[in-house]
């Protein structure tokens, strides 16, 4: 049967602008463009286009734009074109649909329903350009009570290991294999420059990144790739990855084609073999088991490094977080369902998990209700899009945020959701040498540093407007938030009042 899967996109080429230089043809790893010398023009194979926009950006004469394929649906909201295309693909192949990046569906984005406060008359706002404004954050556990020897001016209580962030933003886990070494290098260099941390993900720490160890968070995930004593000792913090917001309950699968020499060495697996991360850790079936792993890692590193545990935001995340805190985790990371991934079954990505805003609010509230909030630090992840999202996350109770999608966008990512194909034209989600060299880490690091510096300035401005001069005073300060367009239950879970309420 002739297939009825249509191209998703159409390449629009302005014939008046096109000079047939062939930049688009040389830059497209999907082989969409071709300079046809017989026809004397550049032709496109629309079906191969993933809308990564590399050609659009690189075209020296701005002759290109990508549009939707003009085919319309039948007018049904139920059997729309996308739903029918998915069925056509599965009818052809019998395969699970794969996609990448975060949940793109029309679920509410609660950040956009939370408004920030500002000072007027009765309390002064602060100008961050004229007065000190603290955005430094420490992550890790805290002592039960702080005892100080006032005569010697020394802290007497033993302080648990912590890491210091100059900005409340870290780069979330993206493994070598799922992204290129140049992408990891860009983030590592940026983290060092910014005084914050990058997370090398579950694929091991490449030897070129070991010099950034003081700014590295290393992951111990269900596949245990690249984990040895050297790996644990190099890092500033160790993270146990239980789940990922984009695909809760699902493991990982890095296809053998992406396991080249370097990835193989870093992951400590044979070249060309599939790297399978099982869905569960096979040694963790309870909070007690998690406690064993946490303390194994603490013991191995002589209690010198904080241990974080990352879970996807799911229905009972608050109870799980409470268990994690009691199991000895120093940092709890909650990853919402809009968080990205290099590859996930599309149905999982689009339908599993809950929004980070609700998860964060309920975790923070639960830990506070149980009186254990101060034992742990809380990090929110899963699509932090701008500085206002950071301020909202901190006001809902986060100590810091993890961002990855936004950092990748700074590196050139256009969120085309084709990471799994391994032909990323921006040199990010690929291991092909001709593509990875398109990302010069020197440029990448500069751009990420610019982005985070700009965000930090904006965080300071927003805090100053509220009359707050330290991010510690904003944390969990939900009076600084007001909801709009939310129902009673949503307000209750978020712990915020409605706009206009005193």
């Amino acid at each position, binding site marked *: 049967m002739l297939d009825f899967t249509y191209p998703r996109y159409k390449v629009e080429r302005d014939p*008046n602008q096109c*000079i047939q230089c062939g930049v688009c043809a040389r830059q497209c790893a999907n082989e969409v463009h071709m300079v046809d010398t017989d026809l004397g023009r550049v032709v496109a194979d629309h079906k191969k286009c993933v809308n990564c926009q590399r050609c659009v950006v690189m075209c*020296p*004469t701005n002759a290109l734009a990508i549009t939707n394929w003009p085919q319309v649906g039948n007018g049904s909201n139920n059997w729309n074109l996308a739903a029918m295309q998915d069925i056509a693909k599965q009818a052809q192949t019998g395969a699970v649909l794969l996609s990448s990046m975060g949940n793109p569906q029309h679920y509410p984005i609660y950040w956009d329903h939370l408004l920030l406060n500002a000072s007027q008359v009765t309390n002064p706002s602060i100008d961050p350009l004229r007065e000190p404004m603290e955005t430094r954050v420490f992550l890790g556990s805290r002592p039960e009570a702080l005892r100080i020897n006032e005569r010697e001016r020394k802290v007497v209580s033993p302080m648990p290991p912590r890491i210091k962030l100059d900005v409340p933003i870290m780069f979330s886990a993206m493994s070598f294999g799922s992204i290129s070494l140049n992408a990891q290098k860009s983030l590592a260099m940026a983290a060092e420059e910014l005084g914050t941390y990058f997370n090398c993900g579950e694929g091991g720490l490449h030897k070129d990144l070991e010099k950034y160890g003081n700014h590295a968070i290393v992951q111990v995930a269900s596949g245990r790739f690249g984990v040895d004593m050297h790996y644990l000792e190099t890092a500033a913090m160790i993270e146990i990855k239980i789940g990922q917001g984009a695909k809760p309950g699902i493991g990982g699968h890095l296809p053998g084609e992406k396991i080249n020499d370097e990835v193989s060495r870093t992951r400590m697996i044979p070249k060309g073999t599939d790297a399978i991360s099982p869905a569960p850790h096979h040694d963790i079936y309870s909070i007690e088991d998690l406690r064993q792993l946490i303390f194994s890692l603490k013991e191995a590193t002589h209690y010198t490094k904080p241990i974080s545990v990352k879970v996807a935001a799911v229905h009972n995340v608050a109870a799980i977080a409470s268990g994690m805190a009691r199991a000895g985790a120093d940092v709890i990371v909650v990853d919402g369902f809009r968080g990205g991934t290099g590859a996930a079954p599309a149905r999982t990505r689009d339908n599993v998990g809950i929004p980070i805003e609700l998860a964060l609010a309920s975790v923070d509230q639960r830990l506070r209700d149980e009186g254990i909030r101060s034992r742990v630090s809380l990090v929110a992840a899963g699509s932090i899009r701008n500085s206002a999202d950071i301020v909202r996350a901190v006001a809902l109770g986060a100590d810091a945020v993890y961002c990855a999608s936004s950092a990748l966008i700074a590196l050139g990512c256009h969120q085309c959701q084709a990471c799994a194909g391994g032909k990323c034209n921006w040199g990010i989600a690929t291991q092909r040498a001709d593509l990875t060299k398109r990302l*010069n880490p020197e440029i990448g690091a500069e751009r990420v540093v610019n982005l985070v510096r700009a965000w930090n300035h904006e965080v300071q401005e927003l805090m100053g407007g509220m009359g707050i001069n330290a991010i510690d005073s904003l944390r969990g300060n939900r009076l600084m938030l007001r909801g709009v367009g939310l129902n009673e239950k949503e307000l209750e879970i978020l712990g915020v009042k409605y706009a206009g309420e005193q």
Partner: protein
Amino acid sequence: MKRIYAIPEWCVNCRRCEVACKAQHSPWPGNIVKAFTLAGDEIYNRVRVEGDNIVSFAANCRHCAKPKCVEGCISGAMQRDPETGVVTSDPSRCVGCRTCVSMCPFGAISVVPAPSGVKSIALKCDLCGDGAGAPGEPSCVAACPNRALMYVESEAM
């Protein structure tokens, strides 16, 4: 003086430098569409990307302190400006003997038909910027998306 350096590690073979160079040396500098549409086959790029998507670099004149091309030029077309250090070729004096081409250790000189078609002339980078040899970023460097062409101060070679 500032010179252009090609970094093969970061060259992505897009050849935007070639496009920019071609337009810059057309009667419509800066207007790529006009340059390519109106000048047709009459304009040439002086920077040339060698290689393919795997390994490539932009071959370009190094503006040597003691240029072999100037040494070998039999007609005095190839000159080095003693003040700016920029090496240029004067098309009106070039006789198309190709001595410069064979003497250049970097393969930076190409020979193209003269506009009249009666002889060939040597073409090479004139370190364009705000003007030939004037300070300002050359058009190829400005067009490079990945810093594979760097315009930096360097010692005399």
